[in-house]
């Protein structure tokens, strides 16, 4: 019989700030963190809005112990977000105590953090390239080879390796168990949490820091998302907070959020022994790959068959059926082609009940946090279960066959919540969370 796995700490990082409290408050009140981009002048882009974390809401130097403060200089934004999330999750789980006597042995603490394609900070790189500019305005590689490249700091490459999220977190918190970095776009967080579950169940760890983080709020990533056709244009006369409309027939694309975060995934026996508070049980996790009919990497099978497969498999593992599920947290990105596949999958799985099972949407509030999106979804789902509360839904109008329309928050009996995430590229992950007292 495999070990029961629980969530004991939540450390989401979103446009609302670090930690569960600001996120949950905004989810219940129905607020959005999406605004005009302040970090750079976004006027060259069709989409000029995002859910940024403001400097006053997060400073990585303040969340790392003093002896690691120097390391923050070699952290890119994505890494800083993961580091912030890890500190918040450990504190929430009551695991931020005396480092000399850790509640969980370092070798039994794993770490699985999803990451995206991290882009080099453009001003830093371009300042170096500029020194090798030739008379025609191109970069002269011969100059670059012997002189120009020395303008880059020696650790430049290490800043942008996707595994640096997990590496900095494992170093700061002395996690010496299995550590991995999953890079499957929006499915990354869910797959990472699923891997933590597997690792604990094969007895290679007792607990894991798990999740994902990403910030695509930079010119290179904004450009890539634009040409991938994923971002919503922002007409001047529209309130930025109303642009993301998951599953709405009038949806025009997604909006980037930065964040994600870390959760503590733990063996139930260990959590019980140390008297940890439990948000929810992870009762099943399953992954599948969608069929991409034409352009590999962007298109998804519109029938959503493989997304539905993941949901079915996760429910089977949890020993429940569609009739038991009290709410569903889809990616709900507001990208029409992805929404279409997800909606089809929900209808396929829930049949005539699809219009009754409430959806919980997060992207209208936090933006699409990409590799971190699933962590936000799981954090919201876990706290919804703990507080027996459905958060508010924003923006979406009436959708045939789905309970997706905007509505205020309300109390609800939530025993089983299904989380489903689909990444650009077609990887899917579904997870069933269970209220801890449900047998």
């Amino acid at each position: 019989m495999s070990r029961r796995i629980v969530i004991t700490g939540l450390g989401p990082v979103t446009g609302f700030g670090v930690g569960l409290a600001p996120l949950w408050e905004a989810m219940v009140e129905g607020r959005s963190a999406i605004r005009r981009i302040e970090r750079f002048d976004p006027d060259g882009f069709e989409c000029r809005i995002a859910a940024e974390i403001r400097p006053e809401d997060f400073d990585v130097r303040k969340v790392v112990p003093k002896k690691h403060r120097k390391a923050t200089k070699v952290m890119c934004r994505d890494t800083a977000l993961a580091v912030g999330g890890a500190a918040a999750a450990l504190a929430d789980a009551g695991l931020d105590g005396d480092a000399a006597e850790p509640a969980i042995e370092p070798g039994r603490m794993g770490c699985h953090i999803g990451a995206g394609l991290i882009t080099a900070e453009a001003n830093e790189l371009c300042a170096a390239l500029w020194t090798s500019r030739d008379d025609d305005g191109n970069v002269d590689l011969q100059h670059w080879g012997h002189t120009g490249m020395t303008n880059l700091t020696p650790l430049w490459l290490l800043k942008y390796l996707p595994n640096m999220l997990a590496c900095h977190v494992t170093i700061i918190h002395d996690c010496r168990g299995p550590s991995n970095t999953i890079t499957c776009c929006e499915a990354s967080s869910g797959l990472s949490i699923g891997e933590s579950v597997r690792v604990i169940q094969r007895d290679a760890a007792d607990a894991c820091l798990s999740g994902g983080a990403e910030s695509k709020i930079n010119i290179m990533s904004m450009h890539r998302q634009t040409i991938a056709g994923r971002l919503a244009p922002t007409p001047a006369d529209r309130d930025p907070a109303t642009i993301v409309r998951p599953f709405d027939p009038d949806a025009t694309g997604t909006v980037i959020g930065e964040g994600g975060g870390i959760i503590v995934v733990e063996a139930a026996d260990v959590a019980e022994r140390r008297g940890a508070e439990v948000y929810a049980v992870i009762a099943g996790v399953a992954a599948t790959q969608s069929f991409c009919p034409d352009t590999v990497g962007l298109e998804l099978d519109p029938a959503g068959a493989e997304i539905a497969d993941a949901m079915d498999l996760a429910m089977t593992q949890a020993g429940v059926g569609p009739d038991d599920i009290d709410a569903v947290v889809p990616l709900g990105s507001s990208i029409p082609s992805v929404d279409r596949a997800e909606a089809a999958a929900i209808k396929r799985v829930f049949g005539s009940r699809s219009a009754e099972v409430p959806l919980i949407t997060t992207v209208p509030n936090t933006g699409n946090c990409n590799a971190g999106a699933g962590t936000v979804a799981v954090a919201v789902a876990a706290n919804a279960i703990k507080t027996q509360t459905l958060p508010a839904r924003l923006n979406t109008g009436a959708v045939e066959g789905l309970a997706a329309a905007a509505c205020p928050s309300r109390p609800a009996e939530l025993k089983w919540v299904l989380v489903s995430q689909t990444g650009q590229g077609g990887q899917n992950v579904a997870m069933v969370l269970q209220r801890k007292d449900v047998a």
Partner: protein
Amino acid sequence: MMRRVVVTGMGWITPLGHDLDTVWTKLINGESGVKPIDRFDASTFPTPYAAQVRDYDYRQYVRDPAIHRHAAMNTQFALGAARQAWDQSCLGSFDGLDLRRVGIYIGAGEGVLDFDAYAKVAMKSWDPVKAELDAPEWARQAAVTMSRWGEIGQEPNMPMSHIAREFGIRGPAYNCLTACAASTQAIGEAVDILRRGDADVMISGGTHTMIHVLGVTGFIRLTALSRQGGDCTKASRPFDRGRGGFVMGEGAGMIVLETLEHAERRGATPLAEISGYGSSADAFRITDMHPQGLGPAAAIIDALKQAGLDPHALGADGRPLVHYISAHGTGTKENDAVETLAIKQVFGDNAPKIPISSIKSMMGHLIAAAGAVELIACVQAIRHGTLPPTVNLDVPDPELDLDYIPNKARHAEIEVCLSDSFGFGGQNDALVVQRLV
């Protein structure tokens, strides 16, 4: 009873060639794939050489090249290697194959940044007075200069998405990217997924190229690359006293993994069994390995434990139970010393009796793909009874006193191999692969 997992197909696209036999013969002959870089002008770079994949056309390996027309170079390598593995496994002719029970777990690196386009856009939008980019101008330049698929194709999950599309895979699908440990970790986790019963078949392995302007620049700035002048085929010298860094390679290694039960049911020929996997984190520094090699040792110990092998025992033939170690063996001062310490720590008195080699001495460091090609080399060693050498090991380092198979391949009956990979940042992985008995 834990499900057993076997390898039923293998394929690689490497700097030494594009098929199993050619590359293996060259490895046994001690040939080097290192040459001057000709993909861009690296003539003034402190390290102007690398082991490139040459004369490779992925189109012969796919059913409909049009579907893969946007494939980036790492994806092209992955498709060729995966096709070879798939064909060797004969899964294509198995009517009972349930593609929802076929998964994929690979360690692919990011695609190649389109440096020319990037530089062009940057130079046109740099404001030298403010010393920063003019963001709106950058966006306008990017829109007309950067190619759509050149950008989208850089996502690290693109190789897996293409492989899934080529073979119709619908099962559990993951890409991991733990730097130089990625494909070893991918294979280990794929094995775990099969053992759990979440799939019957997994395609696993890795693919990567960092032989591009900023990739080479990044490693040079880290002082990780060999800067040895003269004959560049001598530059990759793992375990040699004069080693001074690694030489970059590129390519892909892919394997088909299957539960033994599934392989037997369809009458497939298992090539080897993966019997152990261990994974750990150093939790030490992002730049340096733990000086005592605690993390690597922990991963090796876990892999041996899972395989039920006592590192201190001797077999009936008087040999240690592990017959060959495919080392991470990058050729940096630090790695080879720490790896040697870790092996000694784990195997104690048995350590000097186990032959060890690094094929990075010949094909360079394939980064995310390194572990996969090294695992394939282990399976070949088991099948052929030959161990590939560590070439350029001319002057032994007095502190590195194990048997690194210097310069000449060796014949030996090989039943059990260990393959190690350690990533920048401290993620460590080890696999045990053995003849199926």
